[in-house]
């Protein structure tokens, strides 16, 4: 069974008098554990697709099945629960809460879900260690470097142990070196079985994914499987 099953997805926006087809006639299946790069020119519908997959947006037409369940018909609260337990987001601009410390930002999904404080502290401590942030636990976002901020964001995205991580240009605001580090972290998560979908327009980074979706004008232009491509994350450990 596929983790994600999109069929006949349409997403239209009204811009004044004209209708923009952000997504048009989209059919797509993604299996659990896949590593998918979504590529294409600006305005081709990559973010719209990711928002839809993350249940932040609804299609105008078509169905979206997540783990076999039609999630487009769920109530807002049920969708919130799915987001909370099954999906982790990583954004280009990090989206950390500025007044909370690194540890508190990482704990935020658990706080919102009502996880008890002791359990929260245990898991945050582990995450801080895993992502090399032990020394930064009490730092506010503005006291962290870009790479550290994105590591906090990734730690936050994984703290609920989701099945699916959605990253929209996660290295867009980082230099090449820190960007590579962040990609390595994401790939390591994928190696542990988490399904990873990354939007990027960096050809090199896209090439690292085993599957590439090329978008154009809201349509899937190409779906390239590279089953033989070695996973760099596994080589570099």
């Amino acid at each position, binding site marked *: 069974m596929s983790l994600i099953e999109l069929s006949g997805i349409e997403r239209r926006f009204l811009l004044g008098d004209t209708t923009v087809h952000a997504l048009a006639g989209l059919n797509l299946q993604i299996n659990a554990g896949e590593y998918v790069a979504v590529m294409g020119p600006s305005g081709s519908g990559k973010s719209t697709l990711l928002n839809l997959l993350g249940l932040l947006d609804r299609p105008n037409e078509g169905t979206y099945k997540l783990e076999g369940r039609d999630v487009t018909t769920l109530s*807002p609260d049920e969708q*919130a629960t799915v987001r909370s337990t099954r999906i982790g987001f990583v954004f280009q601009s990090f*989206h950390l809460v500025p*007044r909370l410390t690194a540890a508190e930002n990482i704990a935020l*999904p658990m706080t*919102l879900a009502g996880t008890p404080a002791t359990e929260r502290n245990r898991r945050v401590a582990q995450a801080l260690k895993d992502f090399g942030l032990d020394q930064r636990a009490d730092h506010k976002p503005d006291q962290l470097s870009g790479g550290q901020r994105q590591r906090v964001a990734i730690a936050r995205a994984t703290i609920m142990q989701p099945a699916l991580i959605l990253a929209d240009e996660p290295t867009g605001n980082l230099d090449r070196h820190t960007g590579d580090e962040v990609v390595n972290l994401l790939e390591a998560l994928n190696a542990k079985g988490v399904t990873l979908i990354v939007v990027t327009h960096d050809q090199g980074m896209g090439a690292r994914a085993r599957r590439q979706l090329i978008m154009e004008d809201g349509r899937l232009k190409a779906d390239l499987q590279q089953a033989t491509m070695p996973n760099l994350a596994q080589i570099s450990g």
Partner: protein
Amino acid sequence: MRLTDTLRFARDAATGYPMRTTLSVLAMSIGVAAVVILTALGDGARRYVVAQFSSLGTNLIIVLPGRSGTGGFNPANAITSTPRDLTIDDAGSLRRLPGVRRVAPLAVGTSEINFGGKLREVMVAGSTAEFIPIRNFEIAQGQSLPEEDWNRGSSVTVIGAKIREEMFGNNPAIGQLVRVGDRRLRVIGVLKSTGQGLGMNTDELVIVPVSLAQAMFNSNTLFRIMIEANSRDAIPGVKDQAMDTLKQRHRGEEDVTVITQDAVLATFDKLLGALTLAVAGIAAISLAVAGILVMNVMLVAVTQRTGEIGLLKALGATARTIRLAFLAEAAMLSAVGALVGYLLGQLGAFALRQFFPVFPAYPPDWAVIAGLSTALATGLIFGVMPARRAARLDPVQALMKH
């Protein structure tokens, strides 16, 4: 989200924006402080008047000329006198009534006092020796008015403390001859200072025998007759009998008004209680204004934190969680504002009491409770709208606003 986490989140959010938090806390605290101070003033005035009335004397019954329209007590009558005859003999007839301890006729007017070239205007009270114990005055020097026939007044006077000081300074006053109006009177006593009281200021008063006062003012009517009953229980009986006696003496005409101190007290109590309530109502308007300010501040907060709200939704927050977080923040702002305002108000009332020790400016409990709960309620009610707006935000749009 757990309650403690919601509260901590709201607290961090509030302290994260010190400017707008300070502003709304300030507005709310001014509202609550206004309620506390204004009701302290209003209730202080009520207590002050009640205390003053009580100090007029105990078990007091007052007869005034003229008939009050409704039969109830009309405060206007207590101040302006309608010219209807009430004579010294009327007063004398009341002395023999059962249950009566003392009776004092009272005629008043203004005149000039003159001694050693010093001249000033004075209030002249014409009465008898009994006036002094009825009104709970005390003699500081010398003696009271002589016990004598009420219709022939000796040329003597008892003067107030301030008059004594202004006329005689450090020199002895007792035994001196002063000129009051066109009369030469011997000072036989000085009243103990009582400070500013209700009605007449006794420190600036000159007391003379009642018939002398009537002669000075060329009239034979009285301003009041004051009766002291033996006990509190005797008051109603004495009141009725005084009315009957005077009616008989006035050829069956009910042309006087007999009031008891209790009635006066109750009226003033009610009047000033209503005043306090009105003042509290006006102050409550400032609370509503503060509530609207909290609402605006929270609406600004929602706009300011749109990106954060989108993030919270992406992280799995339900609409309810977001609503509660913003509502908790609004409640916190108004709760802290209410608390600060309460402390400020109590401080203000304390300062008032320090500056005006005679004025018991304590805020009544009901006003404090009403003020605090109105503050909290408005904070919550006006917090609902921004909280709902936050919860309804579209997550994608919200995230783009970062």
